[in-house]
């Protein structure tokens, strides 16, 4: 194992530290293990304002959940090394003390988890868990907190909330449980909400309701939201900005329009090719990304995606193999791509790839307008 590939990558064009509501800069999380350090997150940077939704997309093991947990301070600092900054409303969450973060957690910033059944304590009623969440951060009586809990359950669309408040999680359906999770996250009106695969464990019909609910509540509370998902449908549904992660790095980021309709990074294309589409004939084949996600213990040198990249031969020489690409702005400037391929070439790749995907002739406007559904 050579040392070079495991060094956290320091991206060349540093985004200027902004006064954004949440400003993450060069966030890196490393877990020391017996087999060597695991670089789960390598220099992630992004900005997020209130009322905005940022989607973090990527496969399992791409570092998207670890990123969010690092922001929430849920990474055990004895077990992992967290570097960089994550400035949330003026406070750097990485260097903040445990007490400072704990005061924010569940209060100004909250999190919704993937599997609501295992994320709710099986031995306590929904009401007790909500009341507990209220009373950590607010000095209110138990009965007042309970009234608040019932009110919140009502707001997230749980029927008969006064009765449901005394139910145990196992007595509720999956959608109801996720609503409870959302109620618990929003109970102290957080200004930052992180939703870690909020709809993965749910039926598709319920998924839409939950996403709609999150959007409604965002309008009401002016929340900044980070949605972590591997579901590109969810991304299109809710987000303003998208960050695509691979091997613990951001490989492409930009507005939803840029990343979703004008992707440039081969990995993003691959993700899109992997999604089954209703508007395609059943004979149309999926285009999976070949190979496996990289081991974070031993990242490939050069571009981390190169071993799976079908366009790698477009780069002369072995640049993809030896030189790690930087996250570079393309046009428009907010759109960042980590790829050695020439921008012109990337765009024509995209047009060709998406055209092939849709079974249409490769023309420029396919990429631009092909997916408004």
């Amino acid at each position, binding site marked *: 194992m050579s040392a070079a590939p495991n060094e956290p990558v320091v991206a060349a064009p540093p985004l200027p530290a902004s006064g954004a509501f949440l400003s993450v800069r060069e966030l890196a999380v490393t877990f020391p293990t017996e087999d060597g350090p695991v670089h789960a997150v390598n220099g992630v940077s992004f900005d997020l304002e209130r009322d905005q939704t940022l989607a973090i997309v990527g496969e399992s093991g791409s570092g998207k959940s670890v990123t969010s947990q690092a922001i929430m301070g849920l990474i055990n600092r004895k077990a992992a090394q967290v570097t960089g900054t994550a400035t949330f409303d003026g406070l750097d969450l990485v260097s903040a003390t445990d007490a400072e973060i704990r*005061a924010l*957690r569940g*209060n100004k910033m909250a999190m919704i988890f993937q599997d609501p059944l295992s994320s709710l304590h099986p*031995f306590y009623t929904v009401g007790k868990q909500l009341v507990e969440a209220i009373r950590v951060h607010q000095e209110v009586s138990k009965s007042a907190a309970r009234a608040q809990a019932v009110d919140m359950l009502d707001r997230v669309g749980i029927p008969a909330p006064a009765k449901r408040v005394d139910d145990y999680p196992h007595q509720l359906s999956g959608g109801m449980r996720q609503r409870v999770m959302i109620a618990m996250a929003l109970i102290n009106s957080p200004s930052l909400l992180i939703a870690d695969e909020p709809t993965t464990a749910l039926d598709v019909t319920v998924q839409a309701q939950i996403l709609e609910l999150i959007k409604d509540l965002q309008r009401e509370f002016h929340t900044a939201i980070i949605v972590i998902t591997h579901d590109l449908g969810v991304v299109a549904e809710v987000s303003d900005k998208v960050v695509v992660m691979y091997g613990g790095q951001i490989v492409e980021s930009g507005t939803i329009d840029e990343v979703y309709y004008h992707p440039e990074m081969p990995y993003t294309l691959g993700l899109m090719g992997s999604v089954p589409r209703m508007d395609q004939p059943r004979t149309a084949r999926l285009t999976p990304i070949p190979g496996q996600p990289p081991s974070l213990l031993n990242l490939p040198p050069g571009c981390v995606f190169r071993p799976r990249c079908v366009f790698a031969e477009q780069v002369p020489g072995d640049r993809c193999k030896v030189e790690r690409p930087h996250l570079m702005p393309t046009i428009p400037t907010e759109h960042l791509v980590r790829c050695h391929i020439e921008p012109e070439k990337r765009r024509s790749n995209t047009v060709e790839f998406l055209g092939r995907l849709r079974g249409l002739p490769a023309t420029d406007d396919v990429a631009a307008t092909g997916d408004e559904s």
Partner: protein
Amino acid sequence: MFGYVARRLIGVCLMLVALSFVTFALFTVAPADPARLTCGKSCTPQIVEANRVRLGLNQPFLVQYTRYMVGIPCGDSFPPVGGTFTCLRFNPELQGLDGAIYCPPEPVALGYSVRKSECVTPLILDAFPITASLAIGGVILWMILGLAVGILAALRRGRWQDRSAMGFALIGYSFPTFFIALLLLYFLALTPMPWSGQPLMAVPQWTPLTEDPVGWFTNLILPWVAIAILSAAFYARLTRNQMLETLGEDYIRTARSKGLPERVVIYKHGLRAGLTPIVTAVGIDFAFLLGGAIIIEQVFALPGLGKLALDSTLQFDLSIVLATVLLAGFFVILANLIVDILYAVIDPRVTLV
């Protein structure tokens, strides 16, 4: 819930009947003659025969068994010669007639010991407080030790506290109880200390709680420790593994993300959920102990149920063995029932149907 308990209680009774039947049968087919055991060296064939008739040992197996079982609620008597069975509970005026031996007057008649020439129930009643004292103190001690060490090890996972705690647990777990008991006895109660010339503690002697609470306590320290070491080691490992498993659960992450203090996360959310299998194990272990801590009682010469059971087994004293076996079985079966009910109390997902 009520129906469940009622059904389980019927099950308990059936289990006890089966248990008593098997034990009774084992002793009946065994190559020993209880009638011969009644008179020892003074036995003549005439006396043996007379006692056989007197104790009903000439009757068929099922008749003897039925008499024993009916005698538990009814009481039984053993008249001098060829007496007939009467339910003394319902004919108390028969007591004291004919120079017969009566086993009531205790609430539960458990037969008559031929070797000790005594009714069994008072023997059990004498021995039970000793075993109960031993069991209760032992359980409290090992639970405190086991939980504390287990939680500490889990919270310091992989660090020296964890490694040394688990190392000691392995040692405690590997040594046989009698060895630990003998070590304690030898080094603490028999070896004179170099500074005082006296052993640190007195050799334990049973002192009833009602007579001398302080003496009761000090005399039981060594047996308690001896019992607790092995089980504490077991419970430390169990607690550690349970805690580690629970602390990795998603709902613990949720609790942290709510901003709860770590103390609340670990004890209110973690321990509560990790406790369930520990409760089960404690219930059953405690019941086993109540049936008699045979080895500990033997080593420390405590006249509890375990020693009574062991002695009477060696002496082929059927009625005492039967009584101790039934009692031990009763405790274990009852503990199972209580643990199952507790499960439903602890875990709302469990319903008793």
